[in-house]
């Protein structure tokens, strides 16, 4: 059971984590007890370089895990793992058809957004004048504004 340790700062909500920082790797000495693929706890030899690790990959399970590393008195380390199902199945998830109701579009769309922080008390107001008119208030003094229809 090969375990590769990483230190990642990716948000857990990220489908794909940044695992560019590889700290090291180790072989499992023994599981502490019966372990499953979702939350395995594994004992390895002590290696101080692995202490900052918060993320790992276990080849046996083919999954990525969030992990905590603990040190024992017998020069051992206990690695407690919790599967990262997003990273582990990211390529599959991306292919899945979905109804997306929110997305990072950069700006609002034409779908009404009831979470958008609109001020309910203030508005922009704008008055735009039309460019031309034929109306006149001349009153018949400066313009022939009177119409008389005669037979």
């Amino acid at each position, binding site marked *: 059971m090969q375990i590769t340790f990483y230190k990642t700062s990716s948000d857990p909500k990220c489908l794909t984590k940044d695992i560019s920082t590889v700290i090291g790797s180790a072989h499992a000495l023994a599981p502490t007890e019966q372990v499953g693929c979702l939350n395995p706890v594994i004992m390895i030899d002590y290696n101080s370089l692995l202490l900052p690790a918060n993320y790992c990959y276990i080849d046996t399970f083919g999954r990525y895990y969030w992990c905590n590393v603990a040190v024992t008195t017998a020069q051992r380390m206990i690695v407690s793992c919790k599967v990262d199902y997003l990273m582990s199945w990211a390529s599959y998830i991306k292919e899945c058809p979905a109804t997306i109701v929110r*997305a990072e579009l950069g700006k609002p769309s034409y779908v009404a957004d009831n979470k958008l922080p609109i001020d309910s008390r203030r508005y922009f107001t704008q008055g735009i004048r*039309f460019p031309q008119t034929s109306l006149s208030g001349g009153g018949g003094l400066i313009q022939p504004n009177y119409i*008389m229809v005669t037979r």
Partner: protein
Amino acid sequence: MAVNYEVWGTPEQWCNPNPGSGYEAIEAKLPKATADSYYDIYYNNLVPLNEIDISNCFWGISKNSLFLSLKYISPYINNDNVNVDIRDVYEEQIDRPAIFTATPNGRSQSYHHRYSPDRSSAPPDSAIYFRGVVMAFNYQKVKTTPFVAVRATPQSNAQTIYRLDQYITDNKYVNYPYIVAIGYYVSYNGGNPAYDLSLATIGHVKGYNVHYGSNLFYARSSGIDSFLTSWRETNGSVNYLCQSFILSENINYNIGDSETAFAYKYSIGEQTQPKIYNYDGDPLWELYTDYMDGSTRKYCVGYAIHATADNINDVRDYLFKQMAYIGLPFYYLDSDKSKHIGDSGVYLPKFDINGITTGEYAEGAAALNLPNSEWTDGRTGSGYDPTRRPGNDDYGYLINPFNSNRFTTGLNVWCMYQQDILDVLAGINNLYLTDPAGNEKWQLDFKGSNPDDYIVSCKAMLLNIAHSDTTSAFKLGPVQFDGIACYKYNGTGSFSFGTIPLDGTGDYTPYGDFRDYQPYTTMELYIPLCGTVEIDPEFFVGHSIEIIMMYDIYTGACTAGIYRDNFTLYKAVNGQIGADIPVSAMQMGTYQNSVHALQAAQKQNEIRLASSAVTVAAGAAALIAAPATGGTSLIAGVGLITGAAGLLGGVMQEQNYDYQIEHTQPIPAQTTAAETQNNFCVGGLYPILYVKRAKMLQGYDAEIYSHTIGNACLINGQVGSQTGLVICSSVDLSGVPATVEEINAIKQALGKGVYV
């Protein structure tokens, strides 16, 4: 209401409205002051924008017009028979509408669409052309005059242009007997038609065939197998005018055949003199060989009228008839080029009851009896019932029948200053009150009517009213007041307040998202004289909004039409643009009635006097007869006494009546309560669009909001189709080889949001 297709045919049968690609429409360019600069629209400086309105005016061009017909000749020419009888071709033809409408220069293409019934595109700088788009103009002010393009021989390459009147009166037909083209010049606004007769000017064939004159028969089709082509261009800049049509390819004619071969193939020449007949069966056009291009010698069939001293009057009448088929006023000009409808030498076409040109015309004063002598405008003042315009139901046109001169026949509509009205009233008073002979004059003039019976209405309009250029003597019924000169109304019944773009190109910048619509954005229009109207932003954002005001000069009512993109009517709201000026108290009638009553009573007394005399005579007769009959003398004596008493009373009463008549005076003509009961409250003379838009809470950052909360959307697609935050309401995870716990967790995560 819809156009009468039984008479007009269907739009598919009309001229192709798209000269840019359909090549069937006919167009003419209004002249510019200088030659060869036709792209700068001359008319634009002459046509006030407020004369351009939404309403199309159109009439039908008779199928008898060469204008519509000659293109149908070609399919009937073949090797065996070069005689062409257009009547055969005409079997399927119908009268076609000619649309006159507005295309102001510089406006967007969509503006053209608005005026074209089927919204086909049109060249943006065309001033006039038929069926597709023609300018709104003052019908009466359009001047057209026919010209002819002539040659010494049918095949001559030398060609010259004459106005028809020059051609005939100067006997130019002697040296140039072959008329190969007829057409007309156009001018507008009372100006003279363009008389630049140079070939270079008249023969331009570029793009949309812009030229100064419009050929009476011009049609073109794409490709070399055109049925009829009107223009020949040689040597690039020098263009020669001819009328010719190329035989279509299906008769095995090769473009570029030698003249000899051509003549041989088709036996066309002086020997055979093939004829073209018009619909009336008149063989006017003769066919000749011609060639299209001087350099490559592309031959085709040409045709010409052979004018001689014997038939020159017939030729003139024929051309006049063709001009009348077009429907525009035309002028057979002499040295006086300032003539107007009603003057000699100015001809006005006649239309039938369906608005189709008839080929007939009236000249001089007789033209004033035609309804179109009153047409002022290329739109609502049209001859054909505008409510039967095509597309009227579909495109939201507003109809202003009150503006149509069809309703003003027999009426005079005066455009007056305030002082004019006072002058009219004073004029009436002077004529009938101060003049001692006023009573008799009134009876002679008005035949018992009140002068104000002849005033249909008088309104003060909050409007710059379009009026005639010159004043006319004011007329009230049968009486003309030579001392009072007033303008005549010359308006269109409508004007536009212009357009506001709401697509981000103007002062209004839309959000480009849901906030552009209610309830986040609300819009109101303040329309002068009509009030405030709420409009739905959804209808206008991303488009443009235009307000067109129509007004009724008779009632003072107005209607504002709110349009999207210049032609889609959204709402129409009513208002009042004219205040009633109650020109009253012209109590001539009341006064005269009083006089009449008194005179009648006076007459009655006179009759009673005479009646008494008769009674006396009868009594005397009875008295004389009394000895024979007995007992009757007493009755006769009573009659005698009664008659004498009536006589005395009648004389006294007559004197009394004379006194009363002398002291009965009319109330002077005046305006009462003018401008006091109809005050307007106008917030401004321009409409204003008020927009109230949602404002974001302070601190809102679109980018961060988008990244952390996400913008609402509805996207059906793969999760990976988006980048950044994605929240799914539903997802199908089939194909993900994970445990059920993981699947459930993934679904839950996607529902809350993941970054892809």
